[in-house]
């Protein structure tokens, strides 16, 4: 298989398979959670839960002062990673072209030097959180395969993408093929790993916020 055949395979049949598993997997897990529902609460609500739920989805994105004091590295590097990663993923024009093909609509992108910078920030932050996890005895004790696999699945697209952009290590078609392959690996395993938190975090926060709202408690 030549590099061009490999690229054609990753852009063609393999992407279709990865997309099916990713989309169907997301839908299955999400709908399953929703259908399962929550236990009915017979107590009389003090306030409506809906507004509180919505607010909590976003308010919990900001760290509590206690958390910031206890684990500043996790908070700062976590923020830097998430912003860097999302900018790289959602605002790089070739990526937007891909989203447009799948979703049917696109949006404006950012100049490549900004994307380059954001990608580097995301990678550095990922290395920082990994070292932090390995150095902290408690965190290391609590971490298992299910924590390290998502790290690798996220890091590979970033590093291969950066190498494609800067034309390093391998000829462009081979490196682009590897980049797409790493993304497909991410897509295939996404619904079945902790990476699902990308979407379920908001659902969980809504449930918590809504329950607190009913009880008239600040969330």
């Amino acid at each position: 298989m030549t590099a061009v055949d490999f690229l054609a395979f990753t852009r063609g049949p393999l992407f279709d398979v990865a997309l099916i598993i990713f989309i169907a997997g997301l839908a299955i897990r999400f709908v399953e959670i929703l259908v399962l529902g929550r236990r009915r609460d017979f107590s009389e609500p003090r306030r409506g839960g809906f507004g509180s739920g919505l607010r909590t989805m976003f308010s919990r994105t900001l760290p509590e002062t206690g958390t910031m004091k206890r684990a500043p590295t996790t908070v700062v590097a976590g923020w830097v990673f998430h912003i860097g990663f999302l900018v790289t993923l959602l605002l790089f024009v070739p990526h937007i072209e891909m989203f447009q093909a799948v979703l049917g609509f696109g949006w404006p992108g950012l100049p490549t030097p900004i994307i380059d910078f954001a990608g580097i920030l995301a990678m550095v932050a990922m290395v920082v959180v990994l070292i932090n996890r390995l150095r902290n005895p408690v965190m290391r004790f609590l971490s298992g395969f299910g924590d390290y696999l998502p790290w690798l699945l996220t890091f590979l697209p970033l590093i291969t993408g950066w190498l494609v952009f800067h034309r390093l290590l391998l000829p462009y078609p081979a490196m682009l093929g590897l980049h797409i392959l790493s993304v497909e690996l991410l897509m295939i395993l996404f619904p079945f790993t902790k990476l699902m938190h990308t979407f379920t975090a908001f659902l969980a926060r809504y449930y918590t916020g809504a329950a607190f709202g009913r009880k008239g408690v600040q969330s």
Partner: protein
Amino acid sequence: MQIDETTPNAARSAASGDDRTLGALLAARGVSRRAFLKYSSYLASLLALPASMAPAMAASLAKAQRQSVIWLSFQECTGCTESLTRSLSPTLDDLIFDFISLDYHHTLQAASGHAAEEARMQAMEAHKGKYIVAVDGSVPVKDGGIYSTIAGMSNLDILEETTKDAFAVVAIGSCAAFGGLPLADPNPTGAVPVTELVTDKPVINIPGCPPIPEAMAAVLAHVLTFGILPELDSLGRPKSFYGESVHDRCYRRPFYDRGEFAESFDDEGAKKGWCLYKLGCKGPATSNACATVKWNGGTSFPIEAGHPCLGCSEPGFWDMGGFYRALSVPTGDVARIAAVAAGAGVVAGAAAGALHRATKSAARGKHHTVTVEELEEK
């Protein structure tokens, strides 16, 4: 053979039994030493040789004897020959081509039929181990190679016979180098590139559809000057011409970096000359010198004319998922696949959820309170 002004140069030289050196030939054509030195510097810089090599190159070239070249045309469209022989104006490149002894070439030779084949055999005999075989077009190997024959011989047999005593083989154009159009899916003739068949001789690939004429001239000049092949990349292409991507050398690259793209062929972006990536430009994946050497005497190149790069000097460029589809876009019908997958996922998720609910309520139904007395009985 009667020689007059209308006789093609190559045929004229061959007919006259010209054994002068290139220097003598150029002097007879009225090319000054200064112009020749300038041309040598140009070729040396194209080959990425140090400037100090230019006079040495000129001296070697001036003393060079005619190089015998046998040109084999297989599954091809003659576009490569057209590109190499029909420059916009007579240039020194032409002189290089005039200077080589083109002993066999379907399009350019005067002889035909058995006489033509005889010329090939004679050249092979006379320049054994020294002649260069230039090939344009791919070689069909399916069904015994019957899909392309010349003088009753399959391309495969001619290639084998001719390259046996060759010094080197030059695969000109993407069909010879990588299979090109004939190899495109579904490849009905079983076309293969020259490199797959010639394994015991050095093969230089000069891909492109067609290749840049200067690449061919410079490679010939390199062989004439140094007697060795230029440095090649992993795909057998001279690094001096195929070492950089079209994207990295493109004058529209700043628009790519700024995020300014033409969205269609006639929008404001296209008129302003913005980047053609979204219109399917394969510049990032294509290694060639189009953006620097350009075409038609340095006039322009496809992107400058407003058309995305097709990636014609890369293997399998016909099957790269469409000329007008951006490189980062998947080639399948992804919007439909995503919609179907989402629908199926929702149904499967609902079914799984319902199953869990049923299990839960069944468990609840079976539940009954156990008293302490009942436990003690057990």
